[in-house]
């Protein structure tokens, strides 16, 4: 928009175009604003080739963040988080490259790398007598791919793990983009014995009825619900409403 993003007609149109292609990627009926300067646009152009090289050279690493029992403080599970290790830019979080990975199709081989690396890590835990499951984040492309369940089974058998050692997280908005595809895959994963979690709950503009029907065991309530909590009465009511909603589905 003029004059925030650019002052020349040329670059205004270009930025609008960037925003439009982003909106299209998000699905029908979306809108999007141009989000950054030329520097960022350039970076986006060079991202796909950089990602391809990163995949070839296995320049990815997993970081791990525990999920705790709030009462006892025990570790309930550990979420595996993907990082791209770039020589110049350091560790890059998924938010900055996953959409590029999705439209280039690189998300599938990257997703397979994540499954393998997460299973290898759980093996290392088991060898140290640690009995904690790992959760991994899956994309829509993975859910839509015929080989997803097979890749998970392969990861489990390669490292001698039980299905209960692995849980799959899918964001609410991803699940709702193609529920007809996602639901049966969730059911298949549950049949294998894997747990399924809905991630970023409360941000997906979902049909709650549809979400309730999904075969999931965990619902991760989005961080935005903790804004102003405790203290702000409206914030508190929102957080409690989300919590109550999830728990009445039990």
């Amino acid at each position, binding site marked *: 928009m003029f004059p925030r993003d650019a002052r020349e007609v040329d670059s205004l149109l270009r930025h609008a175009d960037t925003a439009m292609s982003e909106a299209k990627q998000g699905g029908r009926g979306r809108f999007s604003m141009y989000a950054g300067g030329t520097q960022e646009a350039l970076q986006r152009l060079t991202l796909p080739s950089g990602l391809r090289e990163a995949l070839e050279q296995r320049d990815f690493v997993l970081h791990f963040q*525990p999920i705790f029992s709030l009462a006892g403080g025990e570790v309930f599970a550990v979420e595996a988080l993907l990082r791209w290790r770039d020589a110049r830019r350091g560790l890059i979080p998924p938010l900055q490259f996953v959409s590029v990975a999705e439209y280039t199709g690189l998300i599938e081989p990257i997703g397979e790398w994540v499954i393998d690396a997460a299973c290898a890590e759980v093996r290392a835990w088991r060898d140290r007598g640690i009995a904690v499951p790992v959760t991994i984040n899956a994309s829509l492309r993975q859910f839509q791919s015929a080989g997803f369940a097979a890749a998970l089974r392969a990861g489990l058998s390669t490292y001698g793990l039980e299905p209960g050692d692995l849980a799959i997280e899918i964001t609410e908005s991803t699940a709702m983009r193609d529920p007809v595809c996602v639901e049966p895959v969730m059911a298949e994963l549950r049949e294998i014995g894997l747990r399924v979690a809905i991630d970023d709950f409360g941000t997906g503009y979902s049909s709650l009825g549809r979400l309730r029907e999904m075969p999931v065991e965990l619902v991760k309530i989005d961080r935005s619900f*903790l804004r102003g909590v405790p203290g702000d009465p409206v914030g508190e009511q929102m957080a409690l409403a989300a919590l109550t909603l999830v728990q009445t589905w039990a």
Partner: protein
Amino acid sequence: MTAVAEGIETEEQRRFLLEHGCPLGQGYHLAAPMPAEEVRERLSRDSARYLPRVRRRG
């Protein structure tokens, strides 16, 4: 379905959630994301669990 609260950043938030029946949580206040070596080391210790820091007065 079991609820997990994401993005817990303060002890007050943890306590609020616990008091209102939220069983599970994640966030920087409890533990930030860490490299593999660190999580292995942390999980191996008995003290892997999250313990709220005791506040001392004065």
